[in-house]
Protein backbone atom coordinates (compact mmCIF):
# COMPACT_ATOMS: atom_id res chain seq x y z
CA UNK A 1 0.00 0.00 0.00
CA UNK A 2 2.85 2.33 0.85
CA UNK A 3 4.60 1.42 -2.37
CA UNK A 4 1.41 1.98 -4.28
CA UNK A 5 1.05 5.43 -2.78
CA UNK A 6 4.63 6.32 -3.63
CA UNK A 7 4.18 5.18 -7.22
CA UNK A 8 0.98 7.14 -7.58
CA UNK A 9 2.53 10.32 -6.28
CA UNK A 10 5.65 9.94 -8.35
CA UNK A 11 3.70 9.49 -11.52
CA UNK A 12 1.74 12.70 -10.90
CA UNK A 13 4.31 15.07 -9.48
CA UNK A 14 8.00 15.64 -9.56
CA UNK A 15 9.32 14.54 -6.22
CA UNK A 16 12.47 15.31 -4.43
CA UNK A 17 13.76 14.03 -1.16
CA UNK A 18 12.08 10.87 -0.22
CA UNK A 19 12.74 8.47 2.57
CA UNK A 20 12.11 7.63 6.14
CA UNK A 21 10.74 10.45 8.24
CA UNK A 22 13.69 12.09 9.96
CA UNK A 23 13.05 15.82 9.98
CA UNK A 24 9.74 17.58 9.70
CA UNK A 25 8.89 21.19 10.52
CA UNK A 26 11.92 21.57 12.71
CA UNK A 27 11.15 18.39 14.61
CA UNK A 28 13.89 15.83 14.56
CA UNK A 29 12.25 12.45 14.35
CA UNK A 30 14.07 9.25 15.18
CA UNK A 31 12.32 6.03 14.33
CA UNK A 32 13.44 2.95 16.13
CA UNK A 33 12.05 -0.50 16.63
CA UNK A 34 8.59 0.10 18.19
CA UNK A 35 9.43 3.62 19.38
CA UNK A 36 9.64 7.09 17.92
CA UNK A 37 11.55 9.90 19.55
CA UNK A 38 11.02 13.54 18.63
CA UNK A 39 13.10 16.44 19.78
CA UNK A 40 14.22 19.88 18.69
CA UNK A 41 17.73 19.68 20.07
CA UNK A 42 19.35 21.44 17.13
CA UNK A 43 16.85 24.24 17.29
CA UNK A 44 17.22 24.47 21.08
CA UNK A 45 20.99 24.74 20.82
CA UNK A 46 20.65 27.37 18.15
CA UNK A 47 18.38 29.63 20.13
CA UNK A 48 20.53 29.42 23.23
CA UNK A 49 23.47 30.41 21.07
CA UNK A 50 21.45 33.22 19.53
CA UNK A 51 20.73 34.62 22.97
CA UNK A 52 24.42 34.40 23.82
CA UNK A 53 23.84 32.08 26.75
CA UNK A 54 25.61 29.01 25.45
CA UNK A 55 28.43 29.46 27.92
CA UNK A 56 26.19 30.34 30.85
CA UNK A 57 25.68 27.96 33.74
CA UNK A 58 22.93 25.41 33.43
CA UNK A 59 19.79 25.73 35.48
CA UNK A 60 18.07 22.62 36.68
CA UNK A 61 14.56 24.01 36.53
CA UNK A 62 12.98 26.46 34.12
CA UNK A 63 11.60 28.65 36.90
CA UNK A 64 11.52 29.06 40.65
CA UNK A 65 8.92 26.92 42.38
CA UNK A 66 6.61 29.76 43.24
CA UNK A 67 7.05 31.86 40.19
CA UNK A 68 5.27 35.16 40.60
CA UNK A 69 5.54 37.59 37.77
CA UNK A 70 3.39 40.63 38.06
CA UNK A 71 3.16 44.13 36.68
CA UNK A 72 6.48 45.74 37.30
CA UNK A 73 5.77 49.47 37.12
CA UNK A 74 9.15 50.69 38.25
CA UNK A 75 11.26 48.06 36.55
CA UNK A 76 13.97 48.87 34.03
CA UNK A 77 12.56 48.80 30.52
CA UNK A 78 14.29 46.42 28.13
CA UNK A 79 14.28 46.24 24.35
CA UNK A 80 10.88 45.04 23.27
CA UNK A 81 11.84 43.50 19.95
CA UNK A 82 14.55 41.43 21.60
CA UNK A 83 12.16 40.21 24.27
CA UNK A 84 9.56 39.35 21.69
CA UNK A 85 12.00 37.44 19.54
CA UNK A 86 13.13 35.42 22.55
CA UNK A 87 9.55 34.57 23.46
CA UNK A 88 8.79 33.67 19.90
CA UNK A 89 11.73 31.30 19.68
CA UNK A 90 10.78 29.66 22.96
CA UNK A 91 7.13 29.31 21.95
CA UNK A 92 8.15 27.29 18.94
CA UNK A 93 10.23 25.07 21.18
CA UNK A 94 7.14 24.14 23.17
CA UNK A 95 6.15 21.96 20.22
CA UNK A 96 8.23 19.20 21.74
CA UNK A 97 8.74 20.49 25.30
CA UNK A 98 5.71 20.39 27.59
CA UNK A 99 8.00 21.16 30.54
CA UNK A 100 8.47 24.78 29.54
CA UNK A 101 4.98 25.43 28.20
CA UNK A 102 3.74 27.06 31.40
CA UNK A 103 6.66 29.38 32.08
CA UNK A 104 6.95 30.50 28.51
CA UNK A 105 3.24 31.19 28.56
CA UNK A 106 3.60 33.31 31.67
CA UNK A 107 6.50 35.29 30.24
CA UNK A 108 4.63 35.77 26.99
CA UNK A 109 1.95 37.75 28.84
CA UNK A 110 4.35 40.60 29.40
CA UNK A 111 5.45 41.29 25.86
CA UNK A 112 3.76 44.67 25.67
CA UNK A 113 6.03 46.27 28.23
CA UNK A 114 8.98 44.01 28.93
CA UNK A 115 10.93 44.77 32.07
CA UNK A 116 14.23 43.54 33.42
CA UNK A 117 12.55 41.12 35.84
CA UNK A 118 10.78 39.29 33.02
CA UNK A 119 13.91 39.19 30.93
CA UNK A 120 15.77 37.57 33.80
CA UNK A 121 13.10 34.89 33.90
CA UNK A 122 13.29 34.32 30.14
CA UNK A 123 17.06 34.00 30.45
CA UNK A 124 16.58 31.44 33.15
CA UNK A 125 14.43 29.37 30.82
CA UNK A 126 17.16 29.59 28.18
CA UNK A 127 19.73 28.41 30.69
CA UNK A 128 17.49 25.51 31.55
CA UNK A 129 17.15 24.72 27.86
CA UNK A 130 20.91 24.90 27.53
CA UNK A 131 21.34 21.97 29.88
CA UNK A 132 18.39 20.00 28.62
CA UNK A 133 18.49 20.56 24.88
CA UNK A 134 18.32 16.84 24.17
CA UNK A 135 14.95 16.41 25.83
CA UNK A 136 12.06 15.38 23.68
CA UNK A 137 9.07 13.11 23.60
CA UNK A 138 9.20 9.37 23.25
CA UNK A 139 6.35 7.52 21.63
CA UNK A 140 6.14 3.83 22.23
CA UNK A 141 3.94 0.90 21.45
CA UNK A 142 1.07 0.09 23.75
CA UNK A 143 -1.89 -2.21 23.49
CA UNK A 144 -4.50 0.25 24.69
CA UNK A 145 -5.23 3.25 22.57
CA UNK A 146 -7.65 5.14 24.79
CA UNK A 147 -7.54 8.89 24.82
CA UNK A 148 -7.05 10.04 28.38
CA UNK A 149 -6.91 13.66 29.45
CA UNK A 150 -5.68 15.24 32.64
CA UNK A 151 -6.29 18.81 33.69
CA UNK A 152 -5.93 21.13 36.62
CA UNK A 153 -6.19 24.79 37.46
CA UNK A 154 -4.75 27.14 40.02
CA UNK A 155 -6.82 29.82 41.63
CA UNK A 156 -6.13 33.45 40.98
CA UNK A 157 -2.62 32.62 39.86
CA UNK A 158 -2.13 35.87 38.05
CA UNK A 159 -1.52 38.62 40.58
CA UNK A 160 -2.55 41.38 38.20
CA UNK A 161 -6.10 40.42 37.31
CA UNK A 162 -6.79 37.49 39.65
CA UNK A 163 -7.52 35.16 36.79
CA UNK A 164 -6.72 31.49 37.05
CA UNK A 165 -4.55 29.43 34.76
CA UNK A 166 -5.60 26.02 33.56
CA UNK A 167 -3.42 23.35 32.14
CA UNK A 168 -3.87 19.89 30.79
CA UNK A 169 -2.40 17.09 28.79
CA UNK A 170 -3.79 14.28 26.69
CA UNK A 171 -2.46 10.81 26.22
CA UNK A 172 -3.26 8.32 23.53
CA UNK A 173 -2.42 5.05 25.19
CA UNK A 174 0.85 5.96 26.82
CA UNK A 175 1.81 8.57 24.26
CA UNK A 176 1.51 12.24 25.02
CA UNK A 177 -0.04 13.90 22.02
CA UNK A 178 -1.34 17.26 23.15
CA UNK A 179 -1.05 19.69 26.04
CA UNK A 180 -1.95 23.24 26.91
CA UNK A 181 -1.51 25.93 29.51
CA UNK A 182 -3.81 28.89 29.29
CA UNK A 183 -4.95 31.75 31.43
CA UNK A 184 -8.70 31.60 31.82
CA UNK A 185 -10.86 34.32 30.37
CA UNK A 186 -12.98 34.90 33.47
CA UNK A 187 -12.28 35.72 37.08
CA UNK A 188 -13.29 32.70 39.11
CA UNK A 189 -14.70 33.26 42.54
CA UNK A 190 -13.84 29.81 43.82
CA UNK A 191 -11.34 27.08 43.17
CA UNK A 192 -14.21 24.93 42.01
CA UNK A 193 -15.21 27.42 39.38
CA UNK A 194 -11.64 27.61 38.14
CA UNK A 195 -11.62 23.84 37.83
CA UNK A 196 -14.87 23.81 35.94
CA UNK A 197 -13.52 26.24 33.41
CA UNK A 198 -10.41 24.12 33.03
CA UNK A 199 -12.60 21.07 32.59
CA UNK A 200 -14.59 22.74 29.88
CA UNK A 201 -11.63 23.86 27.85
CA UNK A 202 -9.95 20.49 28.16
CA UNK A 203 -13.12 18.83 27.00
CA UNK A 204 -13.16 20.96 23.92
CA UNK A 205 -9.59 20.11 23.01
CA UNK A 206 -10.20 16.50 23.94
CA UNK A 207 -13.11 16.28 21.57
CA UNK A 208 -10.93 17.73 18.89
CA UNK A 209 -8.27 15.12 19.48
CA UNK A 210 -10.92 12.47 19.72
CA UNK A 211 -12.30 13.47 16.37
CA UNK A 212 -8.88 13.09 14.85
CA UNK A 213 -7.97 9.92 16.66
CA UNK A 214 -11.39 8.36 16.31
CA UNK A 215 -11.05 8.20 12.59
CA UNK A 216 -7.80 6.43 12.78
Amino acid at each position, binding site marked *: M*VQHFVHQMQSK*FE*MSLMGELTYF*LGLQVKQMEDTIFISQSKYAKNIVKKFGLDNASHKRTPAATHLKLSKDENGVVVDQSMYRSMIESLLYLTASRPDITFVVGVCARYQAEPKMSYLTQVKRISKYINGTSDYGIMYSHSTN*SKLIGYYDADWAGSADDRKSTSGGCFFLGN*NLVSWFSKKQNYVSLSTAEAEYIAARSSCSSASMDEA*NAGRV
Partner: protein
Amino acid sequence: MNIACHVHNRVKLRAGTTTTLYELWKGRKPTVKYFHVFGSKCYILEDRDYRRKMDPKSDEGIFMGYSTNSRAYRVYNSRTQVVMESISVVIDDVAKDQISEVVPGVEAYVETSAQEKVIPETVQEPEPDIEEAEQDNVETSKGPSTRVKKNHPQDLIIGDLDQGIRTRRSNDIVSNSCFVSKFEPKNVKEALTDEFWIEAMQEELNQFKRSEVWDLVPRPDDINVIGTKWIYKNKSDKNGTVTRNKARLFAQGYTQVENLDFDETFAPVARLESIRLLLGVACILKFKLFQMDVKSAFLNGYLHEEVYVEQPKGFIDPSFPDHVYKLKKALYGLKQAPKAWYERLTKLLINQGYKKGGTDKTLFVKEVKGRLMIAQIYVDDIVFGGILN
Protein backbone atom coordinates in the same frame (compact mmCIF):
# COMPACT_ATOMS: atom_id res chain seq x y z
CA MET B 1 34.92 27.25 -19.17
CA ASN B 2 35.50 30.95 -18.65
CA ILE B 3 39.00 30.28 -17.53
CA ALA B 4 39.62 28.09 -20.53
CA CYS B 5 38.64 30.87 -22.92
CA HIS B 6 40.55 33.38 -20.92
CA VAL B 7 43.70 31.35 -20.98
CA HIS B 8 43.17 30.38 -24.57
CA ASN B 9 42.98 34.01 -25.68
CA ARG B 10 46.11 34.89 -23.82
CA VAL B 11 48.33 31.97 -24.54
CA LYS B 12 47.47 30.15 -27.67
CA LEU B 13 49.18 30.97 -30.91
CA ARG B 14 47.52 30.21 -34.16
CA ALA B 15 49.60 28.50 -36.79
CA GLY B 16 51.73 30.94 -38.71
CA THR B 17 51.30 33.90 -36.38
CA THR B 18 53.56 35.20 -33.71
CA THR B 19 51.06 37.10 -31.66
CA THR B 20 48.46 35.85 -29.29
CA LEU B 21 44.83 36.73 -29.72
CA TYR B 22 45.07 39.05 -26.76
CA GLU B 23 47.89 40.99 -28.40
CA LEU B 24 45.88 41.44 -31.58
CA TRP B 25 42.97 42.76 -29.61
CA LYS B 26 44.64 44.93 -27.00
CA GLY B 27 47.95 45.69 -28.66
CA ARG B 28 50.03 44.66 -25.69
CA LYS B 29 51.46 41.50 -24.38
CA PRO B 30 49.25 39.62 -21.96
CA THR B 31 50.34 38.99 -18.45
CA VAL B 32 50.25 35.47 -17.23
CA LYS B 33 51.43 36.26 -13.76
CA TYR B 34 48.17 35.23 -12.24
CA PHE B 35 47.97 31.86 -13.93
CA HIS B 36 48.39 29.20 -11.32
CA VAL B 37 48.17 25.49 -10.99
CA PHE B 38 44.68 24.45 -9.99
CA GLY B 39 44.64 22.66 -6.71
CA SER B 40 47.87 24.19 -5.50
CA LYS B 41 48.43 24.87 -1.91
CA CYS B 42 48.01 28.53 -1.15
CA TYR B 43 48.07 30.85 1.79
CA ILE B 44 45.18 33.20 2.32
CA LEU B 45 45.87 36.33 4.27
CA GLU B 46 43.50 36.33 7.17
CA ASP B 47 42.01 39.77 6.85
CA ARG B 48 38.41 39.04 7.76
CA ASP B 49 38.60 37.82 11.32
CA TYR B 50 40.11 39.52 14.25
CA ARG B 51 43.72 38.44 14.48
CA ARG B 52 46.12 39.01 17.34
CA LYS B 53 49.71 39.92 16.88
CA MET B 54 51.10 36.45 17.45
CA ASP B 55 48.40 34.56 15.58
CA PRO B 56 49.21 33.11 12.20
CA LYS B 57 48.81 35.67 9.45
CA SER B 58 47.30 33.36 6.92
CA ASP B 59 45.22 30.25 6.49
CA GLU B 60 46.26 27.36 4.38
CA GLY B 61 44.02 26.65 1.44
CA ILE B 62 43.64 25.23 -2.01
CA PHE B 63 43.61 27.32 -5.13
CA MET B 64 40.45 26.62 -7.09
CA GLY B 65 40.17 29.24 -9.77
CA TYR B 66 39.25 32.82 -10.29
CA SER B 67 36.35 34.92 -9.19
CA THR B 68 33.92 35.60 -12.00
CA ASN B 69 33.03 39.08 -10.88
CA SER B 70 36.10 40.58 -9.32
CA ARG B 71 39.87 40.50 -9.56
CA ALA B 72 40.24 37.82 -6.94
CA TYR B 73 41.22 34.24 -6.56
CA ARG B 74 38.74 31.61 -5.62
CA VAL B 75 40.19 29.49 -2.89
CA TYR B 76 39.14 26.75 -0.54
CA ASN B 77 40.08 27.59 3.00
CA SER B 78 41.19 24.40 4.74
CA ARG B 79 40.75 25.87 8.19
CA THR B 80 37.23 27.19 7.89
CA GLN B 81 36.27 24.62 5.23
CA VAL B 82 34.61 27.13 2.96
CA VAL B 83 35.24 28.33 -0.53
CA MET B 84 36.02 32.01 -0.48
CA GLU B 85 37.21 34.71 -2.82
CA SER B 86 40.17 36.77 -1.84
CA ILE B 87 42.86 38.78 -3.53
CA SER B 88 45.39 38.47 -0.76
CA VAL B 89 46.53 35.00 -1.64
CA VAL B 90 49.99 33.62 -2.12
CA ILE B 91 49.94 30.55 -4.27
CA ASP B 92 52.64 27.95 -4.11
CA ASP B 93 52.56 26.16 -7.43
CA VAL B 94 55.52 23.94 -6.84
CA ALA B 95 54.61 22.54 -3.46
CA LYS B 96 55.35 18.87 -3.60
CA ASP B 97 52.63 17.47 -1.40
CA GLN B 98 49.68 18.13 -3.58
CA ILE B 99 46.40 18.54 -1.90
CA SER B 100 44.89 15.32 -2.98
CA GLU B 101 45.19 13.98 0.51
CA VAL B 102 43.89 17.12 2.10
CA VAL B 103 40.66 17.11 0.22
CA PRO B 104 39.88 13.89 -1.52
CA GLY B 105 38.18 14.61 -4.75
CA VAL B 106 40.09 17.66 -5.77
CA GLU B 107 41.87 15.63 -8.34
CA ALA B 108 38.51 14.75 -9.77
CA TYR B 109 38.23 17.95 -11.66
CA VAL B 110 41.86 18.08 -12.52
CA GLU B 111 41.16 15.94 -15.44
CA THR B 112 43.72 14.81 -17.89
CA SER B 113 43.31 14.17 -21.48
CA ALA B 114 45.30 12.27 -23.95
CA GLN B 115 44.75 14.77 -26.70
CA GLU B 116 47.46 16.87 -25.26
CA LYS B 117 49.98 14.67 -26.94
CA VAL B 118 48.80 15.49 -30.40
CA ILE B 119 49.19 19.23 -30.12
CA PRO B 120 50.92 20.41 -33.27
CA GLU B 121 54.43 21.64 -32.98
CA THR B 122 53.63 25.17 -33.96
CA VAL B 123 51.94 25.62 -30.68
CA GLN B 124 54.47 27.15 -28.42
CA GLU B 125 52.61 26.58 -25.28
CA PRO B 126 50.14 23.82 -24.74
CA GLU B 127 46.47 24.46 -24.98
CA PRO B 128 45.20 24.86 -21.48
CA ASP B 129 41.63 23.91 -20.88
CA ILE B 130 39.71 24.40 -17.73
CA GLU B 131 40.68 20.99 -16.64
CA GLU B 132 44.05 21.11 -18.28
CA ALA B 133 45.18 24.62 -17.71
CA GLU B 134 47.55 23.44 -15.12
CA GLN B 135 49.17 20.76 -17.17
CA ASP B 136 51.96 22.28 -18.97
CA ASN B 137 53.41 19.81 -21.22
CA VAL B 138 57.03 19.19 -21.34
CA GLU B 139 57.20 17.72 -24.79
CA THR B 140 56.49 21.06 -26.35
CA SER B 141 59.89 22.33 -25.52
CA LYS B 142 59.99 24.70 -28.47
CA GLY B 143 59.98 27.80 -26.46
CA PRO B 144 57.54 28.37 -23.69
CA SER B 145 58.72 31.05 -21.36
CA THR B 146 61.01 29.90 -18.63
CA ARG B 147 58.60 30.87 -15.92
CA VAL B 148 56.00 28.57 -17.20
CA LYS B 149 58.50 25.80 -17.38
CA LYS B 150 59.66 26.28 -13.87
CA ASN B 151 56.21 26.34 -12.45
CA HIS B 152 54.74 23.52 -14.41
CA PRO B 153 57.04 20.52 -14.43
CA GLN B 154 55.62 17.28 -15.62
CA ASP B 155 55.76 15.54 -12.29
CA LEU B 156 53.34 18.15 -11.07
CA ILE B 157 50.62 16.95 -13.33
CA ILE B 158 48.10 15.21 -11.20
CA GLY B 159 46.86 12.01 -12.62
CA ASP B 160 47.87 9.95 -15.56
CA LEU B 161 48.67 11.81 -18.76
CA ASP B 162 47.55 8.98 -20.97
CA GLN B 163 44.24 8.58 -19.29
CA GLY B 164 41.07 9.68 -21.01
CA ILE B 165 38.71 12.31 -19.71
CA ARG B 166 37.16 11.45 -16.42
CA THR B 167 33.80 12.79 -15.51
CA ARG B 168 33.37 14.98 -12.51
CA ARG B 169 32.05 13.39 -9.37
CA SER B 170 28.71 15.02 -9.19
CA ASN B 171 28.19 14.90 -5.45
CA ASP B 172 31.56 16.22 -4.48
CA ILE B 173 31.30 19.58 -2.72
CA VAL B 174 34.69 20.90 -3.60
CA SER B 175 34.56 20.17 -7.27
CA ASN B 176 30.94 21.27 -7.47
CA SER B 177 31.72 24.65 -6.11
CA CYS B 178 33.70 25.34 -9.24
CA PHE B 179 30.46 25.14 -11.17
CA VAL B 180 28.17 27.33 -9.11
CA SER B 181 28.11 31.03 -8.67
CA LYS B 182 28.86 32.35 -5.24
CA PHE B 183 26.98 35.59 -5.25
CA GLU B 184 23.26 36.20 -5.15
CA PRO B 185 22.18 38.72 -7.75
CA LYS B 186 19.65 41.32 -6.69
CA ASN B 187 18.01 41.81 -10.06
CA VAL B 188 17.86 40.33 -13.51
CA LYS B 189 20.55 42.59 -14.87
CA GLU B 190 23.07 41.28 -12.40
CA ALA B 191 21.98 37.71 -12.92
CA LEU B 192 22.36 37.93 -16.68
CA THR B 193 26.03 38.68 -16.27
CA ASP B 194 26.69 35.30 -14.74
CA GLU B 195 26.48 32.12 -16.76
CA PHE B 196 25.51 29.95 -13.82
CA TRP B 197 22.55 32.12 -12.99
CA ILE B 198 21.43 32.19 -16.60
CA GLU B 199 21.54 28.43 -16.52
CA ALA B 200 19.51 28.38 -13.31
CA MET B 201 16.84 30.60 -14.83
CA GLN B 202 16.77 28.46 -17.96
CA GLU B 203 16.26 25.44 -15.76
CA GLU B 204 13.25 27.05 -14.11
CA LEU B 205 11.72 27.93 -17.48
CA ASN B 206 12.36 24.40 -18.70
CA GLN B 207 10.40 23.11 -15.77
CA PHE B 208 7.54 25.39 -16.76
CA LYS B 209 7.63 23.89 -20.20
CA ARG B 210 7.74 20.34 -18.85
CA SER B 211 4.71 20.80 -16.65
CA GLU B 212 2.90 22.99 -19.19
CA VAL B 213 2.41 25.93 -16.94
CA TRP B 214 1.57 28.58 -19.49
CA ASP B 215 0.85 29.57 -23.11
CA LEU B 216 2.05 32.63 -24.96
CA VAL B 217 -0.96 34.65 -26.12
CA PRO B 218 -1.54 38.17 -27.46
CA ARG B 219 -2.04 40.76 -24.73
CA PRO B 220 -5.74 40.86 -23.73
CA ASP B 221 -7.53 44.14 -23.17
CA ASP B 222 -8.99 45.26 -19.84
CA ILE B 223 -7.40 42.47 -17.91
CA ASN B 224 -4.95 42.93 -15.12
CA VAL B 225 -1.64 41.50 -16.28
CA ILE B 226 0.50 40.52 -13.36
CA GLY B 227 4.17 41.30 -13.40
CA THR B 228 6.82 38.70 -12.76
CA LYS B 229 10.01 38.83 -10.84
CA TRP B 230 13.03 36.63 -10.56
CA ILE B 231 14.19 35.67 -7.10
CA TYR B 232 17.65 34.25 -6.70
CA LYS B 233 18.70 32.02 -3.85
CA ASN B 234 21.86 30.12 -3.21
CA LYS B 235 21.28 26.75 -1.68
CA SER B 236 23.98 25.67 0.68
CA ASP B 237 24.67 22.52 2.60
CA LYS B 238 25.16 22.36 6.34
CA ASN B 239 28.77 23.51 6.10
CA GLY B 240 27.67 26.71 4.44
CA THR B 241 29.12 25.85 1.05
CA VAL B 242 27.03 26.94 -1.87
CA THR B 243 25.88 23.85 -3.71
CA ARG B 244 23.20 25.12 -6.04
CA ASN B 245 21.99 28.32 -7.62
CA LYS B 246 18.24 28.42 -7.61
CA ALA B 247 16.26 30.91 -9.63
CA ARG B 248 12.53 31.06 -9.16
CA LEU B 249 10.05 33.09 -11.13
CA PHE B 250 7.47 34.77 -8.92
CA ALA B 251 4.25 36.39 -9.95
CA GLN B 252 3.81 39.73 -8.25
CA GLY B 253 0.66 38.61 -6.49
CA TYR B 254 0.22 41.86 -4.63
CA THR B 255 -1.12 43.45 -7.78
CA GLN B 256 -3.97 40.97 -7.85
CA VAL B 257 -7.39 42.31 -6.98
CA GLU B 258 -9.61 40.30 -4.67
CA ASN B 259 -12.81 38.84 -6.22
CA LEU B 260 -11.47 39.81 -9.60
CA ASP B 261 -8.31 37.84 -9.92
CA PHE B 262 -8.84 35.44 -7.04
CA ASP B 263 -11.46 34.39 -4.51
CA GLU B 264 -10.08 32.51 -1.58
CA THR B 265 -6.63 32.02 -0.25
CA PHE B 266 -5.71 29.00 1.79
CA ALA B 267 -2.61 27.02 2.53
CA PRO B 268 -2.83 23.46 3.77
CA VAL B 269 -0.89 23.39 7.02
CA ALA B 270 -1.31 20.73 9.64
CA ARG B 271 -1.79 21.36 13.33
CA LEU B 272 1.19 20.30 15.38
CA GLU B 273 -1.13 18.22 17.55
CA SER B 274 -2.22 16.11 14.65
CA ILE B 275 1.37 15.50 13.65
CA ARG B 276 2.14 14.31 17.16
CA LEU B 277 -1.04 12.29 17.13
CA LEU B 278 0.10 10.69 13.93
CA LEU B 279 3.38 9.77 15.58
CA GLY B 280 1.56 8.30 18.56
CA VAL B 281 -0.81 6.33 16.40
CA ALA B 282 2.05 5.14 14.24
CA CYS B 283 3.69 3.65 17.31
CA ILE B 284 0.55 1.94 18.52
CA LEU B 285 -0.21 0.48 15.13
CA LYS B 286 3.46 -0.25 14.42
CA PHE B 287 3.65 1.88 11.31
CA LYS B 288 6.75 3.00 9.61
CA LEU B 289 6.62 6.67 8.63
CA PHE B 290 8.06 8.20 5.49
CA GLN B 291 8.25 11.67 4.11
CA MET B 292 8.43 13.20 0.70
CA ASP B 293 8.72 16.60 -0.74
CA VAL B 294 7.01 17.72 -3.91
CA LYS B 295 9.30 19.65 -6.20
CA SER B 296 7.90 23.06 -7.16
CA ALA B 297 4.59 22.05 -5.61
CA PHE B 298 2.66 25.17 -6.49
CA LEU B 299 3.36 24.75 -10.19
CA ASN B 300 1.08 21.70 -10.04
CA GLY B 301 -2.12 23.47 -9.08
CA TYR B 302 -4.70 24.15 -11.79
CA LEU B 303 -6.14 27.64 -11.96
CA HIS B 304 -9.86 28.35 -12.23
CA GLU B 305 -9.45 32.03 -12.95
CA GLU B 306 -7.94 33.55 -16.05
CA VAL B 307 -4.58 34.89 -15.02
CA TYR B 308 -2.11 36.58 -17.31
CA VAL B 309 1.48 37.32 -16.46
CA GLU B 310 4.17 39.32 -18.20
CA GLN B 311 7.01 37.57 -19.93
CA PRO B 312 9.89 37.02 -17.57
CA LYS B 313 12.53 39.70 -17.75
CA GLY B 314 15.56 38.69 -19.69
CA PHE B 315 13.70 35.90 -21.47
CA ILE B 316 11.32 37.80 -23.72
CA ASP B 317 10.33 36.12 -26.92
CA PRO B 318 11.98 38.22 -29.65
CA SER B 319 9.22 37.57 -32.19
CA PHE B 320 6.33 38.46 -29.84
CA PRO B 321 7.72 41.03 -27.43
CA ASP B 322 4.27 42.33 -26.50
CA HIS B 323 2.64 38.96 -25.86
CA VAL B 324 1.83 37.78 -22.37
CA TYR B 325 1.57 34.35 -20.83
CA LYS B 326 -1.79 32.89 -19.97
CA LEU B 327 -1.44 30.63 -16.98
CA LYS B 328 -2.85 27.14 -16.92
CA LYS B 329 -1.23 26.29 -13.64
CA ALA B 330 -0.36 28.38 -10.65
CA LEU B 331 2.85 30.30 -10.24
CA TYR B 332 4.68 31.06 -7.03
CA GLY B 333 3.53 34.37 -5.63
CA LEU B 334 -0.03 34.10 -6.86
CA LYS B 335 -2.60 34.48 -4.12
CA GLN B 336 -4.46 31.36 -5.11
CA ALA B 337 -1.40 29.19 -5.66
CA PRO B 338 -1.45 27.29 -2.33
CA LYS B 339 -5.16 26.64 -2.59
CA ALA B 340 -4.87 25.45 -6.17
CA TRP B 341 -2.18 23.02 -5.09
CA TYR B 342 -4.23 21.79 -2.15
CA GLU B 343 -7.25 21.22 -4.36
CA ARG B 344 -5.27 19.30 -6.90
CA LEU B 345 -3.75 17.07 -4.24
CA THR B 346 -7.06 16.57 -2.43
CA LYS B 347 -8.78 15.54 -5.62
CA LEU B 348 -6.03 13.11 -6.44
CA LEU B 349 -6.13 11.48 -3.03
CA ILE B 350 -9.92 11.30 -2.83
CA ASN B 351 -10.02 9.69 -6.25
CA GLN B 352 -7.78 7.02 -4.84
CA GLY B 353 -10.12 6.28 -2.00
CA TYR B 354 -8.65 8.45 0.71
CA LYS B 355 -10.90 10.21 3.19
CA LYS B 356 -10.24 13.74 4.34
CA GLY B 357 -10.06 14.52 8.04
CA GLY B 358 -13.03 16.09 9.80
CA THR B 359 -11.25 18.58 12.00
CA ASP B 360 -7.88 18.53 10.36
CA LYS B 361 -8.34 18.96 6.64
CA THR B 362 -4.82 17.91 5.87
CA LEU B 363 -5.05 14.37 7.19
CA PHE B 364 -5.97 11.69 4.69
CA VAL B 365 -6.79 8.13 5.63
CA LYS B 366 -7.46 5.10 3.50
CA GLU B 367 -8.56 1.70 4.67
CA VAL B 368 -8.48 -1.40 2.57
CA LYS B 369 -9.40 -4.73 4.14
CA GLY B 370 -8.54 -3.57 7.62
CA ARG B 371 -5.18 -2.23 6.50
CA LEU B 372 -4.59 1.42 7.09
CA MET B 373 -2.67 4.07 5.23
CA ILE B 374 -2.32 7.62 6.57
CA ALA B 375 -0.99 10.70 4.83
CA GLN B 376 -0.51 14.08 6.46
CA ILE B 377 0.11 17.13 4.32
CA TYR B 378 2.01 20.25 5.17
CA VAL B 379 1.98 22.34 2.01
CA ASP B 380 4.56 20.49 -0.08
CA ASP B 381 5.77 18.12 2.59
CA ILE B 382 3.92 14.88 2.93
CA VAL B 383 4.34 12.47 5.80
CA PHE B 384 2.81 9.10 5.21
CA GLY B 385 2.86 5.70 6.75
CA GLY B 386 1.24 2.31 6.66
CA ILE B 387 1.76 -1.26 7.59
CA LEU B 388 4.58 -2.67 5.56
CA ASN B 389 4.00 -5.97 3.88
